[in-house]
């Protein structure tokens, strides 16, 4: 299966890219998802301050998501003020 990851704001800088496709063998839960990220990025997206959108919809509890084939997961750090 194929899953698209999207990194916004400074997470893009940390990831080194804005988008990435991963190809897991089966649906992923949160721990399974972050395993596909480098350890620094995994730590960053794990922060309570980083929100997650699944197929363009904000999820209430990112730790409870299930990611299926064709899904798009966006990692959203706090928005900038000013």
């Amino acid at each position: 299966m194929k899953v698209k990851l999207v990194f916004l704001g400074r997470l893009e800088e940390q990831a080194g890219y804005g988008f990435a496709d991963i190809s897991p063998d089966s649906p992923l839960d949160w721990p399974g998802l972050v395993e596909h990220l480098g350890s620094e990025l995994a730590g960053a997206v794990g922060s309570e301050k980083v929100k997650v959108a699944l197929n363009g919809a904000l999820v209430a509890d990112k730790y409870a998501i299930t990611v299926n084939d064709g899904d798009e997961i966006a990692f959203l750090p706090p928005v900038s003020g000013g």
Partner: protein
Amino acid sequence: MSDVRLLTSSFDPAEELRAFTAALPMAGGIVSFLGQVREGGGIEALELRHYDPLTLPAMEGLAARVRVRWQLDGLLVIHRSGVLVPREPIVLVAAAARHRRDAFAAADFAMDHLKSESWFWKREKVGGEWRWIEPRAQDFEDIGRWR
């Protein structure tokens, strides 16, 4: 009438306000807020990034909340995304109402929420280096006024 736009190229705030006002002859008062990229402080450019599936829908949702909360004749919300240079307009909010207080409060509320809750990530270029702009404590205070 609500007009909510996310633009990726520059716009002319004076002309937008002219058109907005001309369309609302029954409104007695129009309050607007224009935010522009400040000149000075060594800032060479400002970049706003957004996330397509969320950013415009959230702006539209905010406009709907404003319309429920105040009696308005019209509401205009225009926000830029992309790379901007000093003096370029970033955001224009205008609220037209029969009563002045409604127009002021609606524009003020919309700006506080656009600033602190809308899905934009900003970075600025200073001395050739880009740096991300963090959330500001002031923005949370501003938004807290409406709770």
